[in-house]
């Protein structure tokens, strides 16, 4: 089913916005399996995904001259990864900032292509965290962690404290946060890969959800319920980014990178934990792209938890700080309501489709699908998308990567 977005909201024609085409996503692949039962290694997932993404682009391994890697398969990734793939790239970038790494990689790939250091950039991701039951484990050799680990703060409680503060400062409700889970599940049910993921991971009920379902589900860490939390899966994927000259001869329509932003945030005495690093990276990316949030058709926003999305939408300027709960209400973010605002996480998101630990690459992949017209929750005429990754912990130290994409 396709839904047409009203073109009148655009301030300018997209082809004018895209006058400066310097690098484009030309190949994508999302590894289809979410529970590999330890039978496939992260490296194998990366290589299998790279091969498929290169095929998608109509390119070969030998075309790749730049590699971007978040180091998820171990230390010294920059040493091992080229050998494993059998490549001799001119650019090796191992920026590792958690789930936002791939937005950074996309930004750096564009920069490296613009400066002539590379023509074909390969980003890959592979994880079997679900099979290994490996969960977030802060490094206790960091002084910051040595001050905090005694408290038993969990990954979820870190985000829950943002949610509590958001509720306290702005009157945000659990029902408003639940809107995010309901919208993404609505999209997931239209994505056969997401449905299969939920089956393979043993979700008790695989169906569209209601606000009542979410707020009635088990509380894990107040005020967050189990349905406010992302899934824990295996998985991976790959993205190929190329120069305009290469992109012109690729199999699929190029998806141009038109704006990027990077930022970090950490606990500060007297700071406001309801504001993320996205408040710094978002405006940078929008200014570079020369567009406004209201023009965005597709919002691929890191949904580790429902509160993450509400916070990030505010910080990216879709609405004012504190108004996110109200703004997302009434099913506004569904793909079949394109005149109300952007469609959110149309693949089903980390909440209901794919979250192997660092979800950022899937934000780029689904944004590219939408701008090509290949999504299972396709918004017809979608021409501008945002992919915003949040790596680390929203309630304490994290990195934000914003990428704005435009279709031809």
């Amino acid at each position, binding site marked *: 089913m396709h839904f047409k977005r009203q073109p009148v909201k655009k301030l300018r024609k997209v082809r004018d916005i895209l006058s400066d085409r310097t690098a484009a996503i030309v190949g994508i692949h999302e590894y289809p399996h979410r529970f590999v039962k330890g039978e496939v290694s992260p490296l194998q997932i990366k290589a299998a995904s790279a091969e498929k993404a290169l095929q998608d682009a109509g390119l070969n391994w030998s075309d790749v001259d730049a590699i971007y890697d978040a180091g998820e398969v171990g230390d010294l990734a920059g040493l091992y990864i080229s050998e494993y793939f059998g490549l001799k790239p001119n650019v090796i970038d191992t920026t590792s900032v958690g789930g936002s790494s791939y937005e950074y990689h996309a930004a750096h790939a564009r920069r490296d292509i613009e400066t002539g250091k590379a023509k074909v950039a390969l980003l890959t991701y592979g994880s079997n965290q679900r099979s290994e039951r490996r969960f977030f484990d802060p490094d206790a050799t960091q002084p910051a962690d040595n001050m905090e680990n005694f408290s038993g703060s969990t990954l979820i409680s870190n985000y829950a404290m*943002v949610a509590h503060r958001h509720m306290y400062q702005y009157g945000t409700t659990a029902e408003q946060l639940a809107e995010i889970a309901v919208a993404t599940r609505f999209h997931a049910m239209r994505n056969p890969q997401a449905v299969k993921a939920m089956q393979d991971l043993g979700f008790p009920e695989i169906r569209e959800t209601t606000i009542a379902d979410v707020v009635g589900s088990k509380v894990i860490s*107040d005020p967050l319920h189990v349905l406010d939390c992302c899934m824990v899966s295996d998985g991976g994927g790959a993205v190929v980014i190329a120069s305009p000259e290469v992109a012109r001869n690729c199999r699929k329509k190029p998806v141009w990178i038109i704006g990027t932003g990077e930022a970090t945030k950490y606990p500060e005495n007297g700071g406001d934990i309801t504001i993320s690093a996205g408040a710094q990276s978002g405006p940078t990316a929008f200014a570079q792209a020369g567009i406004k949030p209201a023009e965005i058709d597709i919002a691929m926003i890191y949904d580790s938890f429902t509160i993450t999305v509400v916070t990030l939408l505010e910080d990216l300027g879709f609405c004012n700080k504190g108004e996110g709960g109200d703004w997302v209400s009434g099913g506004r973010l569904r793909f079949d309501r394109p005149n109300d605002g952007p469609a959110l996480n149309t693949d089903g998101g980390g909440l209901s489709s794919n979250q192997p630990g660092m979800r950022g690459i899937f934000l780029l992949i689904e944004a590219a699908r939408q701008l090509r017209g290949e999504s299972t929750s396709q918004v017809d005429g979608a021409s501008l998308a945002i992919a915003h990754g949040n790596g680390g912990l929203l309630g304490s130290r994290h990195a934000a990567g914003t990428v704005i994409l435009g279709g031809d």
Partner: protein
Amino acid sequence: MSDVNRPLPSLDIPDTREFWQGTKHKELRYQQCATCSTIVFFPRAHCTGCTSSDLTLKVSAGRGHLYSYSLVRKSFHPFFEGLAPYAVAWVDLEEGPRILSNLTGIDDPFTDIHMGMPVTVEWEEHEGLCIPLFKPA
């Protein structure tokens, strides 16, 4: 001792050594820059405001307010799983530092915790150091 204990901090990390040594004497230490007056916490060898290394060690009175909290119902760590539901909290000390800790001395965690409520430090004693927890003031 069973292995189901609170995970304790390392005393060997240079930046945080003085802080944890102070807890042995039930001192809640923080730093203030002698040059620009910035409050530095967690402790470091440089000021985060002006990069000066001229930092004065101070002791907090241990009073503050609850900035945010979450009642954890599920933990993968055996000590904390046994403690659940327990409150993880950011506390703003009156002198300025924001510290992550647990709330203690709460009769009913479902009704007796309120955002912004005044709290005061309560030391949990261990061999060689104490852990700063916070109770309602």
